[in-house]
């Protein structure tokens, strides 16, 4: 981030319609039609302060008793505040100098940075719609919001700097000037969890219908998930409750309980406190829901390890992802991120990690890949989402135009424009959103390298191609013969970059595969013989060697394909060799020898010292 230089204003896409000529922009205006993305709409002023309000507020403050003072200096009154230089340096790049969440980096973020002028804070200890306490704001500055681009600043800024920021943030909105300081809700002590707690928690999870958005297995694949938007109109996803290390407000039981009580302002997540007031639930029961939700995630966030060990099995190698043999295979977590190197880039991918298991029997290698995806693509229920996410994230990337007209299955999409998005790069590629599949790719070098030199991690290049396994959830048109179009396919390919993937000739194709989609989770097994015919194009696996391996994934219902998807860097896969017998014999022999030599040495020493002892 440049020191104190003001970022250049970013040209906004022009909204389609204009107000009557000569009229200024009324407050909070929305153009009553189609096609303008939320980012374009946010170019119009919202929450602006009429001069009479400042006058009125000042009068009210002057006439009212003292306690309201000292809260916030009033919007636009932040000049001279000690937090301003810190904010301008560290925060304005995303949140904007005016605090509206439209800094330079904001276009590349979903969810977008917070608009402080609305005083809507997601992570709080106060009731729904209430302002946050100072401690709430400080907490998010300290810890960040793990499911978003907001980092934690605890180790980067001093305590006094962070506290100054809290004060400065409050100057962005007049709401902090009015009324009493916000009061945290009373949360009580965390009750212990028992089996009964979890059972009760599951029961209430069904009764208060959390699954509508979060899904029955909690992976964010509920029936209402495709239509979610935040208060600013941006697409937003219900949390994957099985990955608590990505929860915006933290992943402990207490954090979860607080979210249930306060709701998450600005998002579809409501507050459930009214249910306590109405006597529909007790606090204990709401705690049990929090405990249940916590139990959906592992004890610890997964540890990332560099080498995936493929254990050697004696019996049959499993071919189905739900084969019980996989239960004994070690699972390795490979994190993925958005592809932000090659245009068109993608900053809001769905898949953020894959669990890999590997087994081999000296003849074949079987990889089991498990990842979370709230949609089984293609799925027409997600068509409107696909368009919305492209509109939000694509404007300058030169990406595809979306030709598919959404079915008017959802009235919320009624009237939504279907005009293609203009692309900056000039070459408009048409893609049929309704046919985009889910896909995963496993990448290897074409030969096992002797040193550390590996092909370029983004699917190689012309100089050093890579060898790719690519599975997708639909069979491409024209292939598969009698198979249903939704069956899926897995191919082996050579790639010279992300846009030059060439399947191997049909004679070389030898991947066996099997896939299951279950409540927001794909489980795919890919199998291949270690040694194959086409040694020029296909990697020949060897046991006992670390072989570079990388993963890529795409969620079709998130408009992902080609360079727009999730990527990972090079890791390794290592096929275990059977333990040689010498491993057991050598220590025994060594012990015997050492003991024997030792005894001999002692005996000799005794003899030397004379016979008597």
């Amino acid at each position, binding site marked *: 981030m440049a020191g104190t230089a003001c970022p250049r*204003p970013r040209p*906004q896409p022009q909204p389609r*319609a204009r*107000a*009557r000529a000569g009229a*200024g*922009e*009324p*407050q*909070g*205006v*929305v*153009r*009553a039609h189609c096609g303008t993305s939320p980012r374009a709409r946010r*170019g119009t*002023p*919202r*929450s*602006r302060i*009429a*001069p*009479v309000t400042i*006058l*009125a*507020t000042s*009068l*009210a403050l002057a*006439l009212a008793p003292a306690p309201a003072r000292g809260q916030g200096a009033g919007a636009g009154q932040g000049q001279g505040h000690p937090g301003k230089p810190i904010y301008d340096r560290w925060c304005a790049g995303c949140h904007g100098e*005016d605090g*509206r969440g*439209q800094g330079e980096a904001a276009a590349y973020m979903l969810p977008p940075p917070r608009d402080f002028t609305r005083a*809507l804070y997601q992570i709080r200890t106060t009731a*729904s*719609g209430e*302002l946050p306490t100072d401690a709430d704001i400080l907490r998010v500055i300290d810890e960040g919001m793990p499911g978003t681009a907001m980092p934690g600043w605890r180790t980067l800024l001093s305590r006094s700097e962070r506290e100054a920021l809290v004060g400065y943030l409050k100057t962005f909105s007049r*709401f902090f000037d*009015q009324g009493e300081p916000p009061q945290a809700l009373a949360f009580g002590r965390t009750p212990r969890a028992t089996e009964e707690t979890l059972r009760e928690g599951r029961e209430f999870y069904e*009764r*208060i219908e959390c699954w509508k*958005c979060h899904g029955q297995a909690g992976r964010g694949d509920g029936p*209402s998930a495709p*239509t*979610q938007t935040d*208060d600013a109109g941006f697409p937003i996803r219900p949390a994957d409750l099985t990955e608590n290390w990505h929860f915006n407000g933290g992943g402990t039981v207490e954090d979860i309980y607080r979210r249930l009580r306060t*709701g998450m302002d600005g*998002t*579809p*997540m*409501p507050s*459930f406190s*009214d*249910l306590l007031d*109405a006597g*529909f639930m007790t606090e204990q029961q709401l705690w049990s829901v929090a405990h249940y939700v916590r139990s959906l995630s592992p004890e610890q966030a997964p540890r990332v390890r560099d080498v995936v060990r493929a254990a050697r099995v004696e019996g049959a190698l499993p071919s189905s992802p739900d084969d019980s043999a996989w239960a004994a295979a070690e699972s390795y977590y490979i994190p993925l991120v958005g592809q932000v190197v090659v245009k068109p880039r993608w900053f809001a991918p769905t898949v953020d990690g894959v669990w890999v298991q590997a087994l081999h029997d000296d003849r074949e290698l079987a990889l089991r890949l498990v990842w979370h995806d709230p949609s089984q693509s293609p799925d027409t229920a997600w068509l409107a989402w696909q368009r919305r996410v492209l509109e939000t994230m694509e404007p300058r990337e030169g990406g595809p135009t979306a030709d598919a007209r959404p079915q*008017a299955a*959802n*009235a*919320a999409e*009624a*009237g939504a424009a279907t005009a293609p998005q203009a692309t900056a790069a000039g070459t408009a590629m048409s893609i049929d959103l309704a046919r985009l599949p889910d896909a995963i790719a496993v990448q290897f070098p074409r030969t096992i390298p002797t040193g550390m030199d590996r092909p370029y991690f983004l699917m190689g290049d012309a100089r050093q191609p890579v060898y790719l396994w690519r599975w997708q959830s639909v069979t491409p048109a024209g292939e598969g013969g009698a198979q249903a179009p939704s069956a899926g396919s897995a191919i082996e390919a050579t790639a010279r970059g992300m846009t030059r993937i060439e399947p191997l000739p049909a004679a070389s194709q030898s991947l066996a595969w099997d896939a299951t989609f279950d409540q927001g989770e794909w489980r795919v097994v890919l199998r291949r013989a270690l040694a194959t015919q086409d040694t020029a194009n296909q990697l020949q696996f060897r046991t006992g060697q670390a072989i570079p391996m990388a993963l890529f994934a795409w969620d079709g219902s998130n408009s992902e394909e080609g360079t727009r998807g999730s990527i990972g860097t090079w890791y390794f896969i290592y096929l275990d060799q059977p333990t040689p017998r010498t491993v057991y014999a050598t220590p025994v022999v060594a012990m015997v020898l050492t003991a024997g030599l030792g005894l001999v040495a002692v005996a000799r020493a005794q003899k030397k010292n004379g016979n008597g002892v």
Partner: protein
Amino acid sequence: MVRLHDSMALLVAGLLLTGCGGGGGGGEMAGGESAGAPAAAAIDPTTVGTIAGRIAFEGTPPAGSPIDMSEEPTCAEKHPNGASTEEVVVDQNGGLGNVFVYIKEGLGGGPYPPAEGSPVLDQDGCVYSPHVIGLRTGQSLTIRNSDGLLHNINAKPTTNRTFNISQPTTMETTRSFPLAEVMIPVACDVHGWMQAYIGVVDHPYFAISGADGTFRIENVPPGTYTVETWHERYGTQTVQVTVAAQETADMQVTYSEQMAANAVVPLGAPIDLHGHDTGKHAGTAHGGR
């Protein structure tokens, strides 16, 4: 179509500015009902008039989009003939419903008769009912779930504070808004098609046009007012209305589909009655963005 005459507006504004001075902005904007004054006595019908009229729609209205309720069978059953969006509701005689009509400028600032009762915003058949509802500042709004399944009521004002509350069963919750605001969109995130609008005003002189387009605002003190009509697709129009005691001032407003292209649909605009700038600010806050 009735147009606002600029010269009339200037004259009215001038009159109001010279007459303005009582009341105090702080008291109004701090919310709550009419400041300070004791509850008004029963209204004498000889001293008040009525504003009544009809909102008409010219031409063929766009059809509502069908709503797919297959994910919620309990609600689908309540709509045996299917359900559609209610963005434009026109009856067979060309009357436009769900238009929010209210006095925007010209009132003296109170005291007004106190608000009575608690209007109900119901969720029935996975549809908000009524689609447009009016409320006084500080008045209690009863939010009712008649469906017995999960709805969340996500109100998104900008002048007032938001709220987003969950109702997983048949139950009622009350909320109120301290500040005047036209209009507040309300959504349900579980059922993305659900939409309602709440108009919050400081005074009792508002109405919502019925299915036939007619509306009636009663007990209006005599005077000349700027009345605004608001529609969610076609935006706003303003009319100058003069009310005399014991008389009904007639107001006819027409909308048409062509207005949608250039409609300015205020959401979250605060209302100030004292002739001051009501938020029509020129310029932008972003300088070049």
